[in-house]
């Protein structure tokens, strides 16, 4: 029996229904208080107010130890929190990366001082992170990074540039992958990760507008940026292992198939309102795919809870999730043709936006290569 037939969703714990009910009440309350509107824009819009409310309620750093501001709860509880936020289309962009991958990375590889300095702020929903991986010449081929960190008497000097850095203009930190030594035959040696303070370090942040004209991406330019020695994360030269671990977190969550959930909801509502029998099969198929992906995604949470490596399971969810999101758009186009033609409608906007979701955290082609390796090919 292959691993592919053994990714079993775990049984959800007893308290799940209560946790869901609490979250739904909180989401309704915060919506009244902050006036946010549901949005499937990947992880929603940036709202520091919302992130702080979440933190205050203990919905961030769910699995982290209490001494770092966490809740010491299970990965399955975190899964429930995550999917409730996504289903509601809540404005999660501020805290999402910090809570999903930067915090867990620091917890696993960071120094005690880094953990104490940074994790409680993330868990309070006050401290936001960007991902400093991609470069102009290093996209899918991450080992090709050229941004260099050089030792100085006081720490490190960084030269180079990162691109596609989401929200670097509003976030506090970027965990940045740099070359610190020779690449070796594997090309994976000599890489290290550094904590860059986006507010005080002399990194230049230039906006890169996306095809919708929105400012989410940035270029980060490091022109001899001096940082102290204690900004190294983990061990010098271990960057490849660390970044792979970070990417596993980045790829592991249900946001990989929830990107068009709000559209699916409105499409179902529209079809229901007009009693559209002809829509039943297409929407039923989307529901089947959604539930199958959710079962597989829960299996990922189960692997995380058991302390295992979710790499392949996460790659499967991400590859199929990206296709599912696009399938939703096609059905929505069929059922709401007028909405599809203007960027002022959520559907029109999604048609422009959603193709980018598949690229974030690794393209489907990279996911398929990871899966193929697990199959024993390559």
């Amino acid at each position: 029996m292959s691993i592919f037939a053994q990714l079993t969703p775990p049984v959800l714990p007893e308290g799940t229904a209560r946790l869901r009910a609490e979250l739904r009440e909180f989401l309704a309350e915060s919506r009244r208080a902050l006036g946010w509107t549901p949005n499937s824009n990947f992880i929603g819009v940036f709202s520091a107010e919302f992130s702080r409310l979440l933190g205050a309620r203990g919905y961030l750093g769910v699995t982290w130890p209490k001494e770092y501001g966490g809740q010491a709860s299970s990965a399955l509880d975190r899964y429930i929190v995550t999917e409730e936020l996504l289903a509601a289309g809540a404005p999660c962009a501020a805290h999402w990366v910090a809570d999903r991958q930067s915090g867990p990375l620091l917890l696993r590889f960071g120094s005690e001082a880094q953990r104490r300095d940074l994790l409680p702020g993330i868990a309070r929903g006050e401290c936001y992170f960007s991902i400093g991986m991609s470069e102009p010449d290093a996209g899918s081929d991450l080992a090709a990074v050229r941004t260099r960190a050089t030792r100085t008497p006081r720490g490190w000097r960084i030269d180079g540039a990162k691109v596609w850095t989401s929200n670097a203009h509003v976030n506090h930190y970027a965990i940045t992958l740099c070359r610190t030594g020779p690449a070796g035959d594997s090309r994976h040696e000599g890489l290290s990760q550094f904590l860059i303070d986006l507010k005080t370090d002399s990194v230049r942040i230039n906006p890169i507008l996306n095809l919708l004209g929105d400012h989410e991406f940035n270029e980060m330019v490091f022109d001899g940026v001096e940082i102290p020695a204690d900004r190294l994360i983990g061990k010098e030269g271990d960057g490849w292992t660390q970044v792979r671990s970070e990417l596993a977190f980045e790829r592991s969550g249900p946001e990989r198939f929830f990107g068009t959930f709000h559209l699916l909801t409105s499409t179902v509502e529209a079809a229901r309102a007009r009693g559209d029998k002809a829509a039943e099969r297409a929407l039923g198929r989307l529901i089947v795919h959604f539930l199958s992906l959710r079962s597989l995604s829960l299996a990922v949470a189960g692997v995380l809870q058991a302390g295992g490596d979710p790499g392949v399971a996460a790659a499967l969810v991400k590859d199929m999730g990206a296709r599912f999101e696009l399938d939703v758009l096609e059905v929505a186009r069929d059922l709401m043709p007028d909405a599809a033609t203007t960027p002022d409608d959520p559907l029109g906007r999604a048609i422009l936006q959603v193709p980018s979701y598949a690229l974030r955290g690794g393209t489907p082609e990279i996911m398929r290569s990871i899966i193929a390796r697990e199959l024993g090919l390559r």
Partner: protein
Amino acid sequence: MNDANNLVAEAAERLFADLSTPAVVRAAEQGIWPDALWHSVEEAGFCTALEPDSGVSLGETLAILRAAGRHAAPIPLPETMLARAIAARAGLTPPEGPLSIAVSDQPTTLRLEARHFSGTMRRVPFARQVKAIVALAHDNDRSMVVCAPAERARLTPGRNLAGEPRDDVVFDRLELSDGGMATAPKGIHEAWGFKTAALLRSAQMVGALDAALAMAVRYANERTQFGRPIGKFQAIQHQLAALGGEVAASSAMLDAAAEAVAMDRPSAALAVASAKARASEAAGIAATIAHRVHGAIGFTREFALQDLTRRLLSWRDDNGSERYWQSYIGHEALAPKAAPLWPFLSTP
């Protein structure tokens, strides 16, 4: 799958690997009953797995069926399991040996009149090879379970794409003994039988999907073209990765359905429908990819891939195709009184 399921799965895997060999599968298609295989399956207690108090969990039962599907076992195992489960719940004791069932999502057209059983059942699996057929029938307003001896039926042989028997069966005023009929217990009705049959068939399908994946990967690593194994080509790798996704999604959905049914959760019907729809959709995709990777050799009778793919291409239409279950789910989701989408989907 939990550890207990794994133990049962391993035992079942060994049994079917030993006894449901390609030679046995081919012979069965020529009408030769796989006696050794059947006896071992009976002795292992697989046939009674779905009976109440069998001591075998639903997860274990589905693990057995996955193993049967993985080895294209040419026997009416899910049919016997379900027939014995229905008969046992109704207090009937069917004869030893293989059984079949007639299940439909429609109200039964089978009739009992003063102990005489009449009606037509279409495409009953393995009917010509079983001892008895279990079905639901109406006796005036009463819903009954009947267990009718197959030898007393008029059979019109038929087969599915895999060459498995699918026979039309007619009973014409066959007098049944007390042991051949009983009032249908609460909860045993057409929809229950049809969904349970769909769940069991999904398990066989997931097993066959997994085996087709393994076979295609093995072949891609062995077959050399352009001076290297074709599995070194990214085009092939990505096709097989897509096939891996179909297997993983179908398997995870089946596991979720098994848990929902075992725990009698409100979501059980939706989960079972999704499991059959997902596996049925995967079947066509998987057969296409597995055959593409194998090239012409996979298209031969001699090569074992076709034992799996012809079953997948048949089973996807049994007990509701993907079209059937997708429409069923869409209908439920769009019902005027249905919950909003997220509560509809997230109800445990």
